[in-house]
């Protein structure tokens, strides 16, 4: 009963002095806006990395053998880095070892890749692209679908045909008006016939696929490769998740035997799963999430101090009203509660405005930049709770002052 009365009274006060209220809330609004905008984008990236990126980069139930860890998870120290720098390059013969060690695998595919400054068709070009030489099953392991034309086949591989399946961004740039199929593009001094276009991946880190050109491994090995029979990644896809660990163990053992490593020696190769990427992301995520509260709390503290001042002003402006209320039977806690409610309502209004503006900003970022945004209810609730906390903590002192006023003195004040 008194609760609603308090909120009604507070809203009345805010509404009566709209401009003053807005300025007194700027601190809280900025703090919450920042919190919501950043959290929304971080959460968006989270969802994206977990659900889209990790899966599409590595495929489901897939692991890769690589020379050394490609992703810095933050857990690799300098010594580890120096040690793995001496790891031998992977070669085609390692693929045979892996294939033999993983007889139950659905696919074993391998690839080598190289970056090039540009790819051209006529006068059109696309800069900074990657050519991937993939074995027959590479597309299947990666889960890359073809949007137009066809993908690579066993015959392309066997005959080392100079054919290419191109990423969506490259197709867009080189062939803005016509079909890319059967056109000959030029990259690294070689010409390739376009036989297909990969489905667009899109999103924040979408250019991994969208700016790639996929050619047969044999073709890559014969034309663009820097190392004869060099392989950058060997991908193993198993049928079910439960097969992941035994298969990885088997592959690890086979490679160690093949390389004659003693039990005391570390692997001179690296087994990589999508978990590597996720843990790298989690590290970044944790840093971001740890930094945000600090930044937000600074603006909330400032906002709280402003609210406290406004409330102190309000108490001295309304001393007479407080005296009247006391003379009519308001107890100390009634007055305390009234001003606490007022401060909380004030800052919750600020939080709600901040949430609105923050979501608006996030929506703009989502719409006009590659950064994704996801609204998360727990964070919205946290923002409200934070706002209320700021209100209560900045309202305590003014409310206490008000509750301590002597009714006689207060009634006498002008």
């Amino acid at each position: 009963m008194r609760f609603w009365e308090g909120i009604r009274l507070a809203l009345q006060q805010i509404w009566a002095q709209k401009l003053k209220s807005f300025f007194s809330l700027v601190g809280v609004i900025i703090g919450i806006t920042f919190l919501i905008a950043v959290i929304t984008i971080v959460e968006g990236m989270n969802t994206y990395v977990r659900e889209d990126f990790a899966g599409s980069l590595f495929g489901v139930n897939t692991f890769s053998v690589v020379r050394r860890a490609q992703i810095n998870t933050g857990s690799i120290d300098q010594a580890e880095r120096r040690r793995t720098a001496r790891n031998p390059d992977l070669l085609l013969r390692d693929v045979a070892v892996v294939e033999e060690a993983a007889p139950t695998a659905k696919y074993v595919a391998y690839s080598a890749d190289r970056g090039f400054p540009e790819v051209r068709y006529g006068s059109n070009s696309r800069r900074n692209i990657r050519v991937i030489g993939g074995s027959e099953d590479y597309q299947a392991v990666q889960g890359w679908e073809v949007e137009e034309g066809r993908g690579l086949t066993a015959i392309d591989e066997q005959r080392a045909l100079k054919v290419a399946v191109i990423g969506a961004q490259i197709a867009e740039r080189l062939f803005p008006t016509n079909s890319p199929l059967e056109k000959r593009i030029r990259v690294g001094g070689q010409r390739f016939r376009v036989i297909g276009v990969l489905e667009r991946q899109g999103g924040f880190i979408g250019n991994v696929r969208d700016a790639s050109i996929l050619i047969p491994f044999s073709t890559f090995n014969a034309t663009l490769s820097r190392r004869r029979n060099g392989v950058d990644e060997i991908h193993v896809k198993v049928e079910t998740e439960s097969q992941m660990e035994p298969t990885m163990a088997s592959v690890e053992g086979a490679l160690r035997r093949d390389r004659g490593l003693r039990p005391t020696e570390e692997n001179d190769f690296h087994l990589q799963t999508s978990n590597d990427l996720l843990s790298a992301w989690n590290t970044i995520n944790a840093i971001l999430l740890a930094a945000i509260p600090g930044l937000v709390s600074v603006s909330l503290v400032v906002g709280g101090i402003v609210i406290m001042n406004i409330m102190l002003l309000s108490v001295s402006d309304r001393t007479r009203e407080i005296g009247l209320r006391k003379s009519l039977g308001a107890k100390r806690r009634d007055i305390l509660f009234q001003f606490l409610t007022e401060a909380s309502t004030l800052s919750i209004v600020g939080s709600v405005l901040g949430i609105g503006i923050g979501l608006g900003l996030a929506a703009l970022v989502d719409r006009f930049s590659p950064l994704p945004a996801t609204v998360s209810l727990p964070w919205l609730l946290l923002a409200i709770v934070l706002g209320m906390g700021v209100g209560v903590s900045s309202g305590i002192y003014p409310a206490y002052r008000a509750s301590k006023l002597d009714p006689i003195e207060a009634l006498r004040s002008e």
Partner: protein
Amino acid sequence: MTTQQQPDDAVIKTRDLHKHYVMGAETVKALNGVDVQIRRNEYVSIMGPSGSGKSTLMNLIGCLDSPTSGEYILNGQPVQDLDDDELARIRNREIGFVFQTFNLLPRATALHNVELPLIYAGVGSKDRQRRAALSLERVGLGDRMDHRPNELSGGQRQRVAIARALVNDPSIVLADEPTGNLDSSTSDEIMQVFESLHAAGQTIIMVTHEFDIAAHSQRVITLVDGKISSHDAEIPSFAAHTERPF
């Protein structure tokens, strides 16, 4: 010493009431042994020059303050030793204040202003509105409930304040210079309201320095230097027949 004959229907009874203020090295005895008795349904004025202690006495009677020493029994209950919150509860239930400057909440409607004491009494919203409306009708403002104070005349504002004082059905209405901010015709209007309340059985205590206002009451208590100088001086005939008794 407590065997003194006292009427059973005393609503206010003080004995040897003292209120001392310490001002630096000096102690000011604002009240210096006051014995007052006010019976139910009495209409009493308290008068006295400034500094006589009449405001202090009013604050004590109104339970806004506690005496330094002495006894104060309000409606059968000793209240001299109560703490702030207990006093607030007593004020809420037993006392209806009417102030010189009305003291209405400027942004609230007449109805809401009258509801205020009921809010602190913990009365539910429906019941509150009903009782506040009844109280406003009692002072003839049934048609002004939704008006804010700035939409009302001075006399109407004071009647809202009286409605607010009555809404909790208090033991006493305590009016502090209720006509001090009003012109003479409006003052008469307010005095008629008080008289009709008195006729309906309400106990009224009025602090004033105007004789013609005091003359409306049944008797006048006069304070000088913190003591009662004119003890229980009954002047009913003045109130009935004279415009300016002194």
